[in-house]
């Protein structure tokens, strides 16, 4: 049964593998995926360890719903202590790996220690072995996956792999699968590299048994219809997340030239329709009826011929608006390079945009530019920096490969003001100055500046207040520039996404972008039909709280507190200069922002410093765990 499946403990130092069952009581507390990963992270990782040392552990988790034919249920959660931030490292990846791991008999993996030589983990129908990866070391993420398939003579193998960036311990190296899927954030590929772990490959032909297959089947069809019936999904099906650009670059919610303007002028060539010229069709992850990825072909230019998937809105910012490039082809090439080298698109784009602004402001010595022309819009410098950072080539590439905080220390204190980062991690190219709810989310996220932790994207729709109250359970303003009630909105979305990441479905198929998309009530039914566990909406929300509070406890133990739940100073000092009348001239007001943080902590049952109270720990059943390892 789905709740009674296995975790493999894999020690790369000793080469030992132990298989254990995951208990029902743990399932009821943390579900699976991110939830269980956070439990393991807190339990197994000793405070203050070096994230790149053998004592860090890497956790891979499928969700409790992984494998169902709906809602993009192919997602996998990867966690460790982050080498980028020192806080919770956690990243979610789509594609086809997670279901394959389940078909191979495992729901979770815990990888500890460090292999003596390049290795990969091979998981096949209940068997786990550690294999030599010397011949894979140095290969890019595409070649690595191909080689593993060819070595085992099985084209249906699915692998999580690292590229050059992971091998070279770039602190924001990602983990990749397929042509484009990436566990992008917090440097999980760097942790793999530090363990000499090139890949985790799996192939399975075993059953995943669901409690009520017929009911589940009917309900999955209903879910898919519910999703594809929305205007949002039909837009995504055609243009992917690039459609967001059409909105943000009209309203003024997009950052360009690092953080100087909030609209890209003459940015028509980045409109999603431009992709029609390159697209041969769309592509979906496992169990997804939205299929938001482009399959694109680049026929001309120095990088042609090239086939790729994506790009996401994120890459459009990374290699478009943030660095002042205005051509879709630049984005497509940039997207291809980061996928090939296995480096986080958002982080690398954010850090390149930062050095471009430092260059403009005269804060980067000529020696440090390493002969690169770092003027806005110079795509060759962008491509060159992606390569140099991934390979740690030259002074600049090597400095930037360590991420914002070490780079600030090396380049100079004045450079900090221009770094659009929180807890050492780059923010998306969204401009949150006019939107307090979105700003609160990135400031309080447990893994650094991050939109996928709690973003209430539907706040931007100006929905009727009665509807907002119905969803969020308390009155709040429908004006997205208001601070009223927005802390609750962020808190609620944060719980929803924690549960989403733990059941293993795609966030885009929840109340992220569409109001009537699935939320707790639907999750509850799906959990029952798959596992026979009856978990009500309030119980699910409590599980969400338990997960977030566990993450908070991990971060507290590493020295993080309220002082780290902040925004870059520019959010308070520089008002937006462009956009709709409601957006132009906006900045975040510090006093009101602090009140929102107070309210947000109080909703979670944390004290004024962002530390969970005794009552909260007791209520969530975490009181004994709080003292463990500390």
């Amino acid at each position, binding site marked *: 049964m789905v709740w009674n499946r296995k975790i493999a403990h894999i020690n790369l130092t000793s080469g030992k593998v132990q298989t254990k069952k995951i208990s029902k009581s743990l399932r009821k507390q943390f579900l699976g995926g991110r939830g269980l990963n956070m439990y393991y992270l807190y339990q197994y990782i000793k405070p203050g360890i070096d994230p790149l040392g053998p004592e860090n552990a890497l956790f891979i988790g499928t969700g409790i719903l992984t494998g169902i034919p709906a809602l993009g249920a192919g997602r996998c959660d990867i966690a460790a202590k982050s080498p980028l931030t020192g806080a919770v490292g956690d990243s979610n990846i789509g594609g086809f790996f997670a279901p394959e791991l389940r078909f191979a008999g495992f729901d979770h993996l815990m990888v500890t220690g460090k292999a003596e030589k390049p290795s990969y983990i091979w998981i096949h129908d209940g068997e786990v072995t550690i294999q030599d990866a010397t011949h894979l070391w140095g290969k890019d993420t595409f070649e690595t996956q191909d080689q593993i398939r060819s070595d085992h003579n099985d084209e249906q193998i699915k692998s999580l792999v690292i590229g050059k960036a992971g091998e070279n311990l770039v602190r924001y190296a990602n983990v990749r699968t397929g042509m484009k899927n990436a566990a992008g954030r917090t440097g999980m590929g760097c942790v793999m590299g530090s363990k000499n772990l090139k890949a985790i490959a799996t192939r399975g032909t075993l059953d*995943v048994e669901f409690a009520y*297959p017929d009911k589940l089947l009917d309900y999955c069809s209903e879910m898919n219809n519910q999703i594809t019936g929305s205007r949002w999904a039909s837009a995504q*099906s055609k243009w992917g997340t690039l459609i967001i650009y059409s909105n943000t670059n009209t309203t003024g919610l997009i950052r360009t030239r690092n953080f100087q303007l909030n609209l890209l002028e003459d940015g028509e060539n980045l409109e999603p329709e431009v992709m029609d010229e390159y697209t041969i069709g769309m592509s979906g992850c496992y*169990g997804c009826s*939205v299929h938001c990825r482009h399959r694109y072909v680049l026929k001309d230019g120095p990088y042609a011929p090239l086939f790729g998937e994506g790009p996401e809105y994120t890459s459009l910012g990374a290699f478009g608006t943030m660095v002042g490039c205005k051509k879709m082809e630049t984005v497509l090439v940039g997207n291809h390079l980061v996928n090939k080298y296995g480096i986080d698109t958002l982080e690398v784009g954010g850090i390149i945009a930062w050095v471009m602004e430092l260059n403009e402001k005269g804060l980067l010595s000529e020696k440090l530019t390493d002969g690169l022309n770092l003027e806005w819009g110079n795509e060759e410098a962008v491509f060159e920096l992606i390569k140099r950072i991934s390979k740690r080539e030259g002074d600049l590439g090597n400095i930037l490969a360590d991420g914002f905080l070490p780079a600030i220390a090396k380049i100079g204190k004045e450079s900090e003001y221009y770094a659009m980062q929180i807890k050492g991690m780059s923010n998306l190219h969204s401009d949150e100055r006019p939107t307090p709810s979105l700003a609160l989310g990135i400031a309080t996220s447990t893994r650094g500046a991050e939109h996928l932790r709690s973003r209430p994207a539907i706040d931007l729709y100006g929905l009727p207040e009665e509807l907002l109250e119905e969803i969020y359970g308390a009155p709040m303003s429908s004006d997205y520039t208001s601070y009223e009630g927005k802390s609750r909105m962020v808190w609620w979305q944060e719980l929803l996404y924690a549960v989403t990441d733990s059941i293993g479905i795609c966030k885009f198929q929840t109340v992220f972008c569409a109001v009537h998309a699935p939320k707790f009530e639907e999750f509850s039914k799906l959990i029952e039909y798959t596992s026979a566990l009856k978990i009500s909406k309030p119980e699910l929300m409590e599980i969400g709280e338990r997960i977030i509070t566990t993450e908070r406890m991990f971060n507290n133990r590493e020295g993080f507190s309220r002082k780290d739940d902040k925004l870059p100073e520019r959010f308070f000092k520089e008002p937006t200069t462009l956009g709709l009348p409601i957006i132009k001239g906006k900045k975040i007001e510090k006093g009101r922002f602090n009140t929102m943080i107070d309210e947000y902590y109080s909703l979670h049952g944390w004290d004024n410093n962002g530390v969970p109270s005794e009552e909260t720990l007791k209520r969530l059943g975490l009181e004994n765990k709080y003292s463990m390892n500390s």
Partner: protein
Amino acid sequence: MQKFLFINPEKCSGCRICETVCSLHHEKVCNPTYARIQVIKWESSGLYIPMVCQQCEDPICETVCPMGAVFKDENTGAILIDYDLCVGCKLCVTHCPFGGVVIGKDGKIKKCDLCDGDPLCVKNCEPKALQYIEGTTINFHKRKAAAQRFSELMQKLLAAT
């Protein structure tokens, strides 16, 4: 008018929902290995082609079956197996050029039965890469798509002159 399971690979997004619903419906478990339909992928060039029994007019599986266990359901057009007659020799598996007959976990042969005339893979295929439609309609769709390309070409030519 007889309906057909019509596959249009150009529309397939590769999500494999068809495989999963097939296995859940027929095997009552989630396991694409034993699904009767499979999306074959060329990942690095972005080609996805769903493969399933073609319900042939002159089925090779029927020809090679020594027991006469293969028959056609006149209502749905599905080629089915009479398990009372089938001895499990698997000649049908060997000879089908499409890989349309699979060996189940119990060792018995399995094939697409069009879900008694309401194929679940079709019902759940959002991009409509799988359709269960009348033969004449298939032709109309194909002609329309070709005509569309033709009209675009003509408009370009007209604009050029």
